[in-house]
């Protein structure tokens, strides 16, 4: 494994996409205590909006920004129109609705964007020609495409951190996440805050979709299935309430995946190792981490004296 640095670099871009979807999951989980099963499919729909706008003659950057704004509105509407009424019934209703959304939004995508079942070409936001790379160290190369995805996710994570820790909106979001009753008694509108969380989360999903579209240079209505699976695993690994955990969890899974996929052919049992083995290995690692640390790597195991 002399190319170890290269394999790690290769895993960073896809890992960053996992991180971004996981961040979206964390934002909603913190506010509501629920995993949004539709996160991936909501992102898929937004990505097809971006594709549609680009296809009608705009630049990709403009298309992705418009899609992210549309996703924000969509996320807020889903919270207001579906999740909030469901939440008043029972917590289980919220889970059922978000599973229904998972299926429903995927079907909606194929209905609105008929070509999605065959797949459509997707233009990357970053230069992705065969020569678009820099050499770092001896022989290790890093494609601009992968650098772009990695930096985008780092910047978004940083912005999200600043939003949570340094702004009043972020304070309100942390208040609602920690103690909704006391948040209300302190003057926070929990309804508005949750709509905002869903909006932000959906926007992150839209960007994540554009990133994976750029990596695959193609999107279909199946694109987000595996991404969502690994991203929810990343969020669990990092700790469902920790943005930093989402970042680290996603990148770790990306790297693990790249390493397993690059398992040398002349090593033992190599005939049993292939691309899907990577996913299995990732889940075994998660299982071990969760046995040792049930709240994930960075999740808060609630310290509470009563």
């Amino acid at each position, binding site marked *: 494994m002399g190319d170890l640095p290269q394999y790690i670099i290769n895993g960073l871009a896809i890992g960053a996409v996992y991180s971004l979807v996981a961040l979206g999951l964390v934002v909603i989980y913190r506010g509501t205590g629920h995993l949004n099963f539709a996160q991936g499919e909501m992102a898929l729909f937004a990505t097809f909006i971006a594709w549609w706008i680009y296809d009608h003659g705009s630049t990709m950057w403009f298309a992705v920004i418009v899609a992210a704004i549309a996703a924000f509105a969509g996320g807020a509407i889903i919270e207001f129109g579906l999740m909030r009424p469901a939440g008043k019934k029972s917590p289980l209703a919220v889970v059922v609705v978000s599973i229904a959304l998972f299926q429903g939004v995927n079907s909606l995508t194929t209905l609105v964007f008929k070509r999605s079942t065959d797949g459509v070409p997707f233009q990357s936001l970053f230069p992705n020609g065969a020569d678009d790379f820099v050499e770092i160290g001896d022989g290790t190369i890093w494609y601009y495409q992968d650098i772009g995805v990695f930096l985008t996710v780092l910047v978004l994570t940083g912005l999200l951190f600043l939003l949570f820790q340094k702004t*009043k909106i972020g304070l*309100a979001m*942390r208040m609602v996440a920690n*103690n909704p009753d006391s948040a209300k008694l*302190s003057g926070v509108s929990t309804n508005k805050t949750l709509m905002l969380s869903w909006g932000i989360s959906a926007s992150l999903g839209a960007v994540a979709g554009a990133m994976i579209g750029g990596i695959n240079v193609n999107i279909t209505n199946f694109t987000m299935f595996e991404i969502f699976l690994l991203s929810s695993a990343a969020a669990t690994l990092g700790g469902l309430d920790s943005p930093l955990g989402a970042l680290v969890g996603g990148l770790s899974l990306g790297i693990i995946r790249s390493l397993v996929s690059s398992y040398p052919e002349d090593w033992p049992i190599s005939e049993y190792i292939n691309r899907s083995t990577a996913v299995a290995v990732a889940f075994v690692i998660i299982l071990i981490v969760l046995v040792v640390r049930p709240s994930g790597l960075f999740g808060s195991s*609630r310290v*509470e*004296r009563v």
Partner: protein
Amino acid sequence: MSVLLDVKGLVAGYGAVQVLEGLDLHVEEGEVAVILGANGAGKTTTMRAISGMIARKGSVTFAGTDITATAPNDIVKLGIAQVPQGRGTFTDLSVEDNLRAGAYIRKGGDSVDADMREWYDVFPRLRERRSQKAGSLSGGEQQMLAIARALMSKPKLLLCDEPSLGLAPIITQELFAILGRLNTERGLSIMVVEQNANLAVKIAHSVFVLETGTIVASGTAEEIANDDIVRKAYLGY
């Protein structure tokens, strides 16, 4: 003195279970009102109904404004701050962020920082632990923090739901001494519901006795302390 909080015919409960059945009480401006009641009398329900946390009927008027249909996050803006039962701190937030959370309805800036320093002076233990997570504080410290947090909203009326719950007697005494000083030195109006009647009545101007959802006796603190039946039932002597 004028009436700050006026509650008339308050009806509230949880789902099909009605807990309050036409409750009347009032708090005069600048006074401490205490609601005494045994477990299950409806003390917490009364608090939650006044601050709008549960559905309510009847009329609740605060400083001349009818707030019966007002949402809790708007009621705090009018000047009622509630310290809920079981402290209600933000356990995952630092002590300092808890105080900032309390000032959420304010514009922020220098006056918030100044108030924070002021409450740190009143509760020095909180200053020592300002960067610690609230959940790691002791029960007494958390109760102090919950009160300081409520005060950061600059309320005209402070509602305290059983502040003595789960605290050592000496801490409870300290707590009531502070509540008493907030009233006498700063003129803050306070309404406290308590089981620990002796301590509460000491700082009270008026007392209401709550039994199964209605007020069965009320009067000045002296009147209640001299009422044989109430004294035996709640003060224990």
